[in-house]
């Protein structure tokens, strides 16, 4: 794998992966709360 491809993936992961984890955590926590209290 070329250095450039590694850097490209690295940049994407560093930007996107943490944001994705944070968003999914918020969504999952609210969804679980809503389901358990009968909001859905």
């Amino acid at each position, binding site marked *: 794998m070329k250095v450039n491809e590694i850097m490209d993936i690295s940049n994407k992961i560093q930007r996107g992966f943490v944001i994705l984890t944070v968003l999914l955590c918020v969504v999952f926590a609210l969804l679980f*709360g809503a389901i358990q209290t009968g909001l859905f």
Partner: protein
Amino acid sequence: MKKTTQIYLWLVLYILMVFLPLALLIILPKPEGREFLREVSVALGFLGMALLGLQTIPTSRIKFFTRAFPMETLYNIHHKLSIFTFIVILVHPILLFINNPNSLRLLNLFTTPWRVRFGIFAVFAMFVLIITSVWREVMTIKYDIWRWIHDGLAFLAIGLGIYHMFKVNYYMSLPYQKVLWLTLTGIWVLIIFYIRVVRPIVMLRRPYVVEKVIAERGDSWSLYVKPLNHKGFKFSAGQFAWITTESPFIFQENPFSISTSSNRDDEIIGFTIKELGDFTSTIKQLKPGETIYVDGPYGNFNLDEHYHRNLVLIAGGIGSAPVLSILRTMKDRGREEHVMFFYGNPTLDSVIYLEELEEIQKEIDLKVVHVLEQPPEGWEGEKGFITADILKRHLPDDYKEWEYLFFLCGPMPMIQAVEGALKGLGIPSVNISSEKYEMA
């Protein structure tokens, strides 16, 4: 399997391990729900615990992760997700207190049940963990001691957190949740076992001996080591390794860039190390024949694996060690591409490899641009720090078209400044490969 597919599969697996317990709780039958804030709090507790346990993976240096991901990316993700994990874990009790202010009495450690005590201790362990990691240098904690504190607190927080979850026993009363969390805990324990037991054993069975130690300029020392009764390892110029003079079980290891050519056939590996205190001050005392342990190679730079015809190397001080490995390798291979080396140092006397660089310039197409903070009288070269102006002055007019690959190595502030300067000059970030000297 393609490396990119492998990378994305690992990321999906990571996400699955974080969200699977909660996703199954959402889908499958479960105990009755309670107040909204209480349930959100429980969900955050589950997510925080899964994230905490999985923080053992990015910095584990397990080969199939370090081959798939750049080391710097793994550490970067670890730093960011650890802080986020702490926030999630902290919000878990806060929501419970908002939901029911009477529950604040549970904070009384003398009267509160053990399951709550363990939860409080877990949050406190994580708090100390984050504080000592983010402000390690401000708190002047030595790296070796910090690593023990860091690992100890992490294991403590995981153990206390798991105990807390099992003892609260609401959603954990479901058999499949018990199995799932025991499996996840098993994975974390296996990773810890690999880091603490398997890797040290592998290192002990593959020792190296000191060949020689040479004094360099700028309070630096070149340490040459040779594998003892094994073949050592193959590395690419620009890579680094963790080394220790103590037993690998003591974990007094530090990462250093390899400075020798990757084309040497005598199996000797060299590191150039600047004396900055702690372990680095002991290098000069090493004697030929002494045992040393090396774990490597790591790092994703590869001289042969890029799309560009030419190279621009930018380093500050001891960041020149991997650059020298690249230049020595190019010299040994008789490479013909054009190379520029922007080399920042405080003074001319502190320029490591000054004479050798002049020699290499005679053998390959290399242009070295020295940038000195305090130049000697009559100095006609560049002064100050490596800036966009200095880069622009020396790069060819058509540097964008020439398709140069930029390799940066040095302390974090220098890397950040130079990366900013390069982006300002219109260099795409995929053309920049950086090795920062602050991965802890």
